[in-house]
């Protein structure tokens, strides 16, 4: 305050500044009456401020030291105001209308003033500056409309400031020297303590030291608590954001569900339209199949099916279905057939998506994990497919354009053309992502995890592949291993069994189909279990490539196996399924059937197996009871189940989905 007083000059020089102030104050007084009543109070305040501002401007102008300061910052004041404006643009509080009108008026007054001397321009610039500065932050009336809650912070802002910068907070107005003196005293305290070492530290010195340390510890505590405060605030913000995200995710899920339902109804309507259009052209069998297909489609909206019933039949293959696999009850199912095709089906809409071309021979084994499919074929190659990009509405291939155009929506309908050639079936291109070559004969067994695959083939070897590089990293020679093992192990009871050599020389023909050398395999990390044509189960270590264990027991070629941490279940053409305890290596249980077992899968509750009859057997492991799934009209070749859905492929050319 004192500085402003001293800058006053004697009266004569005040005249010019006074005239400006008088003009502004009188004209603002007239404008007050001119304005509407609503803004009058605010205007009085602003006018008074303007008057004070004018007085101060006059005073400031008269002090030569401050005047030059204003010319320089003029240029970057523009940028300052823009900087000020832009962050506040998002804030809802804004300058009041009255302020804006007052400012406009002010600027009009500036322009009307006749004198254009540097002083008035300087002061007018100042006044304009003052005005723009005032506009740069929201007025108090707007701000004060906001709620001012009780302050819960343990530490005030100033205390935090003082904690971080204690020297700056303790200063008094007019003595910067004192501040430095304080600082020097603090340093001097420690210095003098060293100096006093000779004379011995006096009591007062120690007390002073202690006080100093206490202050420091207080300061640290304050800093700690302010930081903890900030952390808490941020934690609360994070929680808020997480809750928001959850709400949005659930919203999205609901919208997605609605969309799915609508799509299903659209499909149903499409199907009925198509059926009406094409009704007269098809044969009776097709009509029957269409009707069953259509009848099943509205039912697919029902989530709950009766247990033990087939709720969907996927028709389309022209010949025996050899193997099936699916990744999710509402996802994609892949089936291979003796007609030479591999088809992908959309289980959500129960439609065939298309065929996967690439293999030149029958696909004997496959595995589908999420979106990657591995198929092993009689042509000795294993192909890798990526199914993520399959569109739900398949586009017809170029060859079938004329046929497809008859269907209004342009989608192919396999239900209508199950005996048709592949022209109606869209070809899913660009799915094959890799080819594992190396086997010299048919690939008959396959298993993979995220990065590795192991395949067994009729060339009497099993190969381990690295899926990223698509190279074979290990070849296991089953013959060599069996011979070396057979010479050492006590195989007294097995002389009736033909040796592997004799099996292979025998021109392998058995009752049903040629038996595969390696019927089945599965691995987990480095432990591989294989079932071979001699009925023996072998455990291999993939790190060494050696078979360290053999489980004899089956009397016929093994066709399927699966193991978990405790048990290994294997099925063979000797019409039995054996459950082995892996810890002891002995048979835990044997299930007998009437015909060779072709495929099996188990989980903790049941073992589902298929054999050469048309029925699928479900064995409940806790109740030791068998139950049947009937529906197929030919021997079932492959079964796969996940959660509560079982898929089965049989020689009647259809894939059936069952609710478990």
């Amino acid at each position, binding site marked *: *305050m004192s*500085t402003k007083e001293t800058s006053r000059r004697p009266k004569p020089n*005040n*005249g010019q*500044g*006074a005239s400006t*102030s*008088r003009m502004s*104050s009188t004209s603002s007084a007239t404008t007050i009456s001119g304005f509407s009543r609503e803004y009058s109070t605010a205007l009085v305040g*602003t006018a*008074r*401020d303007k*008057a*004070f*501002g004018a*007085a*101060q401007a*006059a005073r400031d102008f008269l002090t030569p030291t401050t005047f030059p*300061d204003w010319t320089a910052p003029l240029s970057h*004041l523009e940028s*300052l105001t823009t900087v*000020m404006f832009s962050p*506040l643009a998002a*804030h809802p*509080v804004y300058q009041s209308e009255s302020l804006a009108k007052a400012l406009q008026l002010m600027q009009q007054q500036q322009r009307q003033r006749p004198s254009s001397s540097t002083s008035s321009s300087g002061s007018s610039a100042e006044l304009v500056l003052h005005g723009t*500065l*005032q506009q*740069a*932050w*929201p*007025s*108090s*009336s707007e*701000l*004060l409309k*906001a*709620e*001012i*809650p*009780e*302050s819960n*912070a343990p530490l*005030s*802002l*100033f*205390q*935090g*400031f003082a904690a*971080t*910068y204690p020297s*700056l*907070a303790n*200063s*008094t*107005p*007019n003595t*910067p020297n004192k501040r430095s003196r304080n600082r020097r005293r603090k340093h001097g305290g420690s210095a003098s303590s060293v100096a006093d070492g000779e004379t011995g530290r006096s009591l007062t010195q120690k007390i002073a030291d202690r006080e100093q340390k206490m202050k420091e510890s207080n300061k640290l505590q304050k800093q700690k608590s*302010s930081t903890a405060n*900030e952390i808490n*605030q941020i934690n609360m913000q994070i929680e808020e954001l997480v809750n928001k995200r959850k709400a949005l995710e659930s919203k999205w899920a609901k919208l997605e569900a609605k969309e799915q339902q609508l799509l299903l109804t659209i499909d149903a309507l499409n199907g009925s339209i198509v059926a009406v259009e094409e009704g007269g052209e098809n044969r009776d069998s097709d009509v029957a199949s269409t009707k069953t297909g259509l009848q099943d489609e509205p039912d697919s909206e029902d989530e709950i099916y009766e247990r033990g019933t087939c709720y969907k039949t996927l028709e389309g293959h022209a010949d025996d279905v050899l193997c099936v696999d699916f990744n999710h009850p509402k996802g994609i199912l892949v089936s291979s057939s003796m007609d030479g095709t591999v088809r992908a089906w959309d289980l959500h809409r129960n439609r065939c998506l298309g065929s996967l071309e690439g293999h030149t021979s029958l696909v004997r084994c496959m595995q589908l994990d999420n979106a990657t499919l591995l198929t092993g074929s009689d042509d000795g190659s294993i192909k890798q497919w990526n199914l993520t990009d399959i569109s739900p509405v398949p586009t017809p291939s170029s060859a079938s354009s004329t046929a497809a155009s008859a269907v209004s929506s342009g989608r192919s309908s396999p239900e209508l053309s199950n005996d048709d050639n592949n022209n109606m079936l869209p070809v899913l291109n660009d799915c094959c992502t890799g080819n594992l070559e190396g086997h010299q004969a048919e690939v008959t067994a396959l298993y993979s995890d995220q990065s590795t695959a192991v395949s067994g083939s009729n060339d009497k070897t099993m190969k381990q592949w690295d899926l990223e590089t698509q190279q074979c990293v290990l070849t296991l020679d089953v013959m060599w291993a069996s011979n070396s093992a057979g010479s050492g192990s006590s195989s007294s009871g097995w002389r009736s069994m033909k040796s592997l050599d004799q099996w292979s020389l025998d021109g392998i023909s058995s009752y049903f189909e040629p038996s595969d050398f390696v019927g089945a395999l599965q691995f987990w990390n480095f432990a591989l279990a294989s079932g071979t044509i001699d009925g023996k189960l072998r455990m291999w270590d993939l790190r060494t490539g050696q078979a360290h264990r053999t489980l004899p027991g089956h009397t016929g070629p093994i066709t399927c196996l699966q193991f978990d941490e405790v048990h290994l279940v294997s099925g063979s053409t000797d019409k039995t399924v054996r459950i082995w305890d892996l810890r002891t290596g002995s048979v835990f249980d044997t299930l007998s059937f009437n015909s060779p077992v072709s495929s099996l899968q188990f989980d903790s509750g049941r073992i589902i197996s298929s054999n050469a009859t048309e029925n699928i057997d479900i064995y409940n492991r806790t109740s030791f009871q068998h139950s049947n799934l009937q529906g197929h009209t030919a021997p079932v070749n492959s079964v796969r189940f996940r959660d509560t859905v079982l898929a089965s492929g049989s020689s009647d050319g259809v894939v059936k989905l069952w609710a478990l």
Partner: protein
Amino acid sequence: MKNDVMPMAQEAEAPLSPAEVEVLRKQFVKEGEYVTVQTKFNYAWCLIRSTDRQQISQGIKLLTEIFHDSPERRRECLYYLAIGHYKIGNYSEARKFNRELLKHEPRNDQARDLDRRIDEKVSSEGAIGLAIIGGAVTVGAALLAAIVKRSRQ
């Protein structure tokens, strides 16, 4: 309120050295987009304490942001905003903020002290303004009298 929780208004008259201001500014800038309230306040407080109008107004702007963003700090911000406006000369605004603070905390010594200072300033400036106007009026009246006399003669 104790003196260490809120500073007295006269502490706002003591500016910091440019080096110190620079230190605080660097800390403020360093924290970037997610600057903490404490850092912002530190910088704003040192700006308000300066004698440069521009810096004071920048400090006011920062405090307004704190006011807007952190509801729990609003009460303190009222005080500092009042000081800022008081230093710049917006006495009506300063008074509004201070009155609001006194509404919530009537026993706040610092707020009452600030109120007293604002009143002093207002009256003194009013006196100055009146003095200027009065002087101008007398000069104008003297001129008029001289002109009239001359015209009569």
